[in-house]
């Protein structure tokens, strides 16, 4: 078994501080951005965003905490949360007024009263100027006609919030090239065109100018941290710490501006660029990419030169991971139900193959997994790329890590993902260099703008809703929040009781699916159009391959590769729903279509025996049975074909995916009863997983069912969550789990993730949270400390079929 190294005392102290500190909202960023936006109302957005960032890098407090070696903060307080008013802030004013902000049960935060008072002064200003409002204002009136359809998750006011995020900047370039060289390159482009701006050159020049400003911003911040370290060194009585602070200062003075020279500098640069990106960009799925590939050459050369030991390198990486874990962003209270646990999605990818096709595993690969396992960290989340040559030792540590730390890492198959990305148009080298973005979305590492849902917010699409509309003449049976019935928002495809055959049901479902994918794409296109105008990203574009070459920001299609991701939720529920109609009404004729329809529309009230009979009798997806699995295959094909035919504003094709973060619980609450016997408000199925507890034939059968879905054409990711009883991994169980994953990948499965936990243990954790403070579980798209999750999500994890075996 893999032997994990001990945790250094300093690392243990920092970890304790992290786990013991209640996060606090800090308004430093809010103050600076508000002041800047109020003083510069007329700056063109490209320059405004660049200068806003420069202003932040010049004036944000620089804080170096005790015991820190890797530095950088978004707040003045330890483990604090910054505010991002220019993106979406309306919710905080509401929560302050209702008192909810300081009384949350999930993801609780502190905030000082004087800070609350300060923020409240600007409600009027920001409610007219944040991106959410600007998006609302830009939506043409016809969008309001589809509000309440139950499929597309936006269309109403305030739902345009959240971008920009879900991408992987080119950290490797920041580390190896430095911002001085990048600035020089932008300046050379300007010099070539100055005094002769033809065609679109003016726009390009604005972009290059913005890049020069953000390069200055990045360098400025680094030098301010260097000065802070020097200042602390001067006053430090401890000789060892003083020397360390000077070492930190020297690194910070050098990096960002210049190429990193050592492992320490590379790690510090990686982290500080992340801080700069986050100061600009809303900290939403800002993905680190292939950290083991960025760092290993520095580690090896330091080791060869005798500048570092394995222990020291591990300690630095531990401190880096803890810094990432500390970063968090306060979400609206309602969002914590869907993605609680202070998660920020700064995903790290390890393993896989290199650009030349050889195994990419290195010492940093192991060290990163050691960070997660030894420190029981769910943040940063990690994905492990698997290929034929993945070493046994890496398999070993990966399974040991996920055993202790649910869902860390997720397992991803190069065999499927690389061809899927080649299909998207990536070069062989770029495809081989992919990383996972946000939760489980494959994308290029530093050369791809895969923008989920346009501006980079996950945009979920509820598949079961399409089935409901298909059999209810395009009307969502879920009443509006005010209790009034919904309008007809979908196509008038008729009612179930008028349908003469199951083919008619399928035809109606296909029409609704295609109709609402088109609406979904339309909405995302408007959102992207608005967002790119107001929120260009020169700080990302500065490193992203393709942008300096083309003179275009990533938001304008400047990256070398472009895509738009789609996330379908609840294919298991949708499949079993269609199966139920087919089996009960048309094949077995156990009831009439009218009886079925009436019971469903009554939310099964007064029809409990009928509901039970449906759940008991129908063949369920997830058991390797052709009857349901053919329908799952059909749904996935209808969705992927339609999604792949759509194009986005950057001339790119959309790519399909099937994953939910954890919205299957939250959106289950907003979804009417479904034909599979699910009652109104109960969770939907997650990812491509079967409905919770309906996979009764064991994991091999579950995987065989999941393989009926076309993974290769789901380039935006699939997600399959499995829960094993700890006993299943005892004895030879670990090797068998590895064989299970290998077989799934051999058969063209894309992604797997595991919780190794017993239901008894999880129930005990609900009752005695303090005794299980460090229990990490995977929910769907992310991992979190179990005790920090919404009860609905906790129950969802418990309810999953436990594969504990004979």
């Amino acid at each position: 078994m893999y032997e994990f190294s001990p945790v250094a005392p300093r690392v243990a102290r920092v970890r304790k501080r992290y786990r013991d500190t209640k996060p606090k909202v800090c308004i430093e960023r809010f103050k600076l951005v508000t002041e800047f936006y109020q003083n510069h109302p007329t700056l063109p957005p490209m320059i405004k965003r660049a200068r806003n960032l420069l202003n932040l890098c010049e004036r944000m407090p620089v804080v170096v905490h005790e015991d820190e070696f890797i530095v950088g903060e978004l707040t003045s307080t330890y483990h604090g949360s910054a505010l991002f008013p220019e993106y979406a802030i309306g919710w905080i004013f509401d929560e302050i007024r209702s008192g909810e902000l300081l009384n949350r049960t999930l993801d609780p935060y502190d905030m000082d009263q004087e800070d609350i008072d300060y923020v409240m002064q600007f409600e009027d200003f920001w409610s007219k100027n944040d991106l959410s409002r600007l998006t609302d204002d830009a939506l043409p009136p016809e969008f309001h006609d589809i509000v309440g359809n139950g499929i597309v998750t936006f269309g109403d006011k305030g739902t345009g919030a959240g971008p920009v995020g879900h991408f992987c900047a080119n950290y490797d370039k920041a580390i190896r090239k430095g911002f001085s060289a990048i600035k020089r390159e932008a300046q050379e482009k300007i010099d070539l065109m100055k005094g002769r701006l033809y065609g679109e050159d003016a726009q390009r020049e604005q972009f290059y100018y913005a890049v020069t400003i953000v390069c200055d911003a990045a360098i400025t911040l680094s030098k301010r941290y260097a000065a802070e370290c020097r200042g602390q060194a001067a006053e430090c009585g401890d000789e060892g710490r003083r020397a360390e602070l000077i070492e930190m200062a020297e690194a910070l003075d050098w990096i960002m501006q210049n190429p990193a020279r050592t492992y320490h500098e590379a790690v510090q640069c990686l982290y500080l660029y992340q801080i700069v990106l986050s100061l600009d960009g809303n900290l939403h799925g800002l993905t680190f990419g292939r950290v083991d590939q960025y760092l290993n050459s520095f580690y090896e050369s330091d080791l060869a030169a005798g500048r570092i030991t394995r222990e020291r390198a591990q300690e630095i990486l531990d401190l880096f991971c803890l810094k990432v874990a500390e970063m968090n962003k306060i979400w609206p209270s309602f969002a914590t139900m869907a993605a609680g646990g202070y998660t920020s999605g700064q995903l790290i990818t390890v393993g896989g193959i290199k650009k030349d096709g050889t195994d990419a595993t290195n010492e940093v690969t192991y060290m990163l997994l050691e960070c997660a396992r030894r420190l029981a960290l769910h943040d940063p989340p990690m994905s492990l790329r698997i290929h034929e040559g993945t070493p046994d030792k890496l398999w070993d540590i990966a399974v040991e890590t996920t055993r202790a730390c649910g869902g860390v890492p997720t397992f991803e198959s190069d065999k499927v993902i690389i061809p899927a990305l080649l299909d998207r148009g990536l070069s062989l080298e770029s495809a081989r260099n992919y990383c996972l973005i946000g939760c489980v979305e494959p994308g290029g590492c530093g050369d791809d703008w895969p923008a989920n849902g346009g501006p980079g917010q996950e945009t979920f699409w509820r598949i079961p809703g399409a089935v409901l509309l298909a059999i209810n003449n395009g009307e969502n049976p879920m009443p509006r929040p005010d209790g009034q019935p919904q309008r007809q928002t979908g196509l008038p495809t008729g009612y179930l009781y008028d349908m003469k055959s199951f083919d008619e049901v399928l035809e109606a479902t296909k029409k609704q699916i295609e109709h609402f994918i088109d609406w979904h794409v339309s909405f995302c296109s408007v959102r992207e159009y608005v967002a790119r105008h107001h929120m260009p990203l020169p700080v990302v574009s500065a490193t992203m391959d393709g942008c300096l070459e083309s003179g275009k920001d990533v938001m304008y299609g400047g990256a070398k590769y472009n895509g738009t991701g789609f996330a379908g939720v609840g294919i298991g529920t949708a499949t079993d729903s269609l199966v139920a109609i087919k089996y009960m009404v048309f094949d077995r004729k156990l009831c009439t279509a009218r009886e079925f329809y009436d019971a469903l529309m009554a939310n099964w009230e007064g029809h409990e025996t009928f509901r039970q009979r449906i759940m008991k009798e129908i063949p369920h997806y997830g058991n390797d049975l052709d009857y349901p699995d053919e329908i799952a295959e059909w749904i996935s094909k209808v969705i992927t074909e339609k999604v792949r035919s759509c194009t986005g504003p950057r001339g790119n094709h959309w790519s399909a995916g099937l994953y939910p973060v954890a919205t299957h619980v939250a959106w289950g609450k907003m979804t009417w009863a479904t034909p599979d016997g699910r009652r109104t408000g109960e969770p939907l199925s997650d990812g491509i997983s079967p409905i919770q507890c309906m996979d009764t034939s064991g994991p091999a059968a579950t995987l065989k069912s999941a393989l009926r879905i076309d993974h290769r054409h789901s380039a935006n990711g699939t997600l399959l969550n499995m829960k094993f009883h700890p006993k299943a991994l005892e004895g030879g169980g670990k090797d068998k789990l590895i064989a299970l994953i290998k077989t799934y990948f051999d058969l063209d499965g894309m992604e797997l993730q595991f919780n190794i936990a017993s239901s008894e243990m999880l129930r005990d954790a609900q009752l005695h949270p303090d005794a299980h403070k460090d229990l990490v579980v995977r929910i769907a798209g992310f991992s979190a400390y179990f005790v920090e999750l919404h009860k609905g999500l906790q129950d969802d994890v418990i309810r999953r079929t436990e594969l504990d075996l004979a």
Partner: protein
Amino acid sequence: MSSDPAGTIYDIQGFSVQDGPGIRTTVFLKGCPLRCPWCHSPESRRFDIQLSWQSRRCIGTAVCGLCLVSCPRGAIVPAEGSQSTDTEDGLQLIRVDWDTCDDCGLCAAECPAGALSMWGKRYTVSEVVDRALRDRPFFEKSGGGVTISGGEPLSQAEFTLALLRALKENGLHTALDTTGFAPWAVVEKALPHVDLFLLDLKNMDGRAHNAAVGVPNQPILENARGIAAAGGKMQIRIPVIPRFNDSGGNLRALGKFVAELGEAVTLVQLLPYHALGVPKWERIKHDGPILEATAPSDKKIGELKAILEEYSLTIQVH
């Protein structure tokens, strides 16, 4: 296949990881000649198809009650008060009068929630083989295969032999999980088609054995010797049952016996008693005494393991 015999099976589990090497599909046959009071799958003991009642699934007689009217013998009656621990309070559940029930299955056919269901179903050999072959990719990667378990699979000799033959014809690894209590003639016929026997040995004291489980140990021990002599491979499984077979003396006798089987034995597994099977007894008609004991301590198991190790055996604790 000219004939396709059928057998009574109560479960087929995919990805069974404790019943032999690799990822396995385990077929559980119904019926056993032994009556071990610690049995953790009491539903496997009777040879016929029998009723099972799971209160947790019942939705109550207020909305349902179909079973009450379905039973021609009046064996299903409303329970006194709510007996459910998992469902909401106040649900009026039912009770099965096991003395009156004849396992006809009419209530299970009516029960929409699956609270009343039947343990056991007839499968033909080809149906089982088709099911197993679906898992073939997983067997290949892991060095797994199919385990036939029970109950006592050799009690349904014709079916089990035909199934073993068919599995081998399809090139699958086979394991036979057996009490060893079967005529040698049956074991001998199975031998060429079994890659690995998972053989239970419980107590070397024949009288104690007979008293506790209702059959003598002599045929079992002779079969073990016979398998070894014929070149078969065995994993020996020893359930550790408090006050029945957990004495040092018994373990020494077992160790000596197993050591004499020589290279035929690839592994000896100690299976400490656990009470997880006890709730299952509540679901079916009782057919013998039930042992409710405390699980042996890790220390105790460690001591027993040390005894067996004196005989140069490879021991694994489950």
